[in-house]
């Protein structure tokens, strides 16, 4: 079963991939805009791959592509599995429904069976600290309560490739610590994960390998240390007054991203 001598096959492989959008320019004029121009990298079973790049580098388009939400316009993608999904908090939440109904709907949208969610409901309620509130309409919830319910449900989705966008933990200080810790465990486990961030510290903490993307083009891919060094050098070259790239710890970085 385990043939170790063979080079591992990637679960996902991108070759010179490009994605474009048509942007409106005037009444009848449309303009083509390439969000991704030339992206190539491979993702292997069980690893945590970090994708780093500045705002506008094409990271969110890349996530949609990896999740199978959109198709590429050029280049090739080879997939060993179709079960890749974005970790989305509060997916499909409706304010007029109760917390329980929202949990069921959100879970079903993520591909979890209704029965499964209902069986896990007690755990979801306990984890989200919503005892006594779960059958109240969502519109009566505070932002923190919504965030906790969103996380508790999203965490139950179980895609083969988990795609994470920036914020790991949510809610108030205590829940944020709890959820960040859980996400960390999940990322460090056997789960295949892609983490997208513009922060070197997040990638450094969570990922074995990294890919650096700049204006829709892969600049470099390799071990995290190497990539971050190159990314950091460029950042400090561009903003000389800062000296070196700031590296706040992950938790405080996450705080800013809620």
């Amino acid at each position, binding site marked *: 079963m385990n043939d170790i001598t063979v080079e591992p096959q990637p679960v996902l492989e991108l070759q010179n991939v490009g994605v474009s*959008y*048509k942007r409106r320019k005037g009444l009848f004029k449309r303009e083509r805009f390439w969000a991704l121009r030339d992206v190539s990298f491979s993702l292997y079973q069980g690893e945590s791959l970090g994708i780093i790049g500045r705002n506008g580098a094409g990271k969110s388009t890349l996530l949609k592509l990896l999740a*199978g939400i959109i198709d590429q316009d050029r280049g090739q993608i080879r997939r060993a599995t179709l079960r890749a*999904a*974005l970790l989305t908090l509060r*997916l499909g939440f409706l304010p007029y429904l109760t917390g329980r109904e929202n949990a069921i*709907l959100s879970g*079903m949208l993520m591909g979890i069976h*209704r029965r499964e969610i209902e069986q896990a409901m007690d755990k979801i309620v306990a984890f989200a600290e919503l005892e006594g509130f779960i059958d109240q309409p969502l519109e009566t919830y505070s932002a923190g309560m919504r965030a906790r319910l969103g996380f508790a449900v999203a965490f139950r989705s179980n895609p083969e490739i988990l795609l994470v966008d920036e914020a790991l933990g949510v809610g108030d200080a205590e829940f944020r610590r709890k959820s960040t810790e859980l996400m960390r465990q999940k990322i460090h486990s056997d789960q295949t994960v892609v983490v997208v961030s513009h922060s070197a510290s997040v990638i450094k903490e969570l990922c074995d390998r990294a890919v650096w993307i700049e204006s829709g083009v892969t600049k470099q891919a390799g071990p995290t240390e190497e990539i971050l060094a190159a990314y950091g050098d460029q950042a400090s070259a561009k903003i000389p007054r800062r000296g070196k790239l700031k590296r706040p710890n992950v938790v405080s970085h996450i705080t800013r991203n809620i």
Partner: protein
Amino acid sequence: MHPYVELVWYKAYADLRAEGARAYLGMLWWVLEPLLQMTVYYIVFGYLLQRGGPGFIYFLLCGLVTWRWFANSLLRGAGAISSNAGLMSQVYLPKYLFPPMAIIANFLKFLIVFLLFLAFLIFSGSALHWSWITLPFLLATQMLLIAACSSLLAAVMPFLPDLKMLIENGLTLWMFMSGVFYDITALPERAQLYFRLNPMATLIENYRAVLIQGAWPDWPALGIIASVSMLGIGAALYLLMRYDRIYPRAVMS
């Protein structure tokens, strides 16, 4: 049950629940709103224009109840893809799931009004006919027509967002062409021929025959509507699958 089937039902239920929770009177509006509209039309056509005669109320309601089902389904179904832009950009879902969600929600709302209408027919003394047992076939035919029209519209709307402006007025015109307020058989022979090309005119005529006159439906006509609708559903499915991963980009930009 397949998770997608489960999802379609639950989403239809959730949307209805959310809609009901939005107003003070909630789901009561599903009955009140059609009642109000029917009253308006009854006053205009029955009293002001003096179109009525004995039994006009049954004639009118029969047309209005079934027309409303068609029009509301189309209005909502046409935006099934466009209005779910947020959801589509966060998770992959086959796009052919969206029109059925809207169609089912509208069917449930219609069913309440339709059952009330049947009750009204019975209790107001209009006889109960044996022909009523064919109603499921009439409803099924109209359901196929609705599914075809609304999923075809849903499939092209993301590429032609301006269509939205035309649909509402198009439906108003279509309503006046469908014999909701008048009897098509009273028109000249030649005109009738054109009216029969309109599936809704044919359906409404059949509802009246079955519900009020106690006659059997025009089976060949229903058969034609059902078959053409199935072709339409096939075409819509083809488009929805073909552009499955294009829609999220189309509705975003």
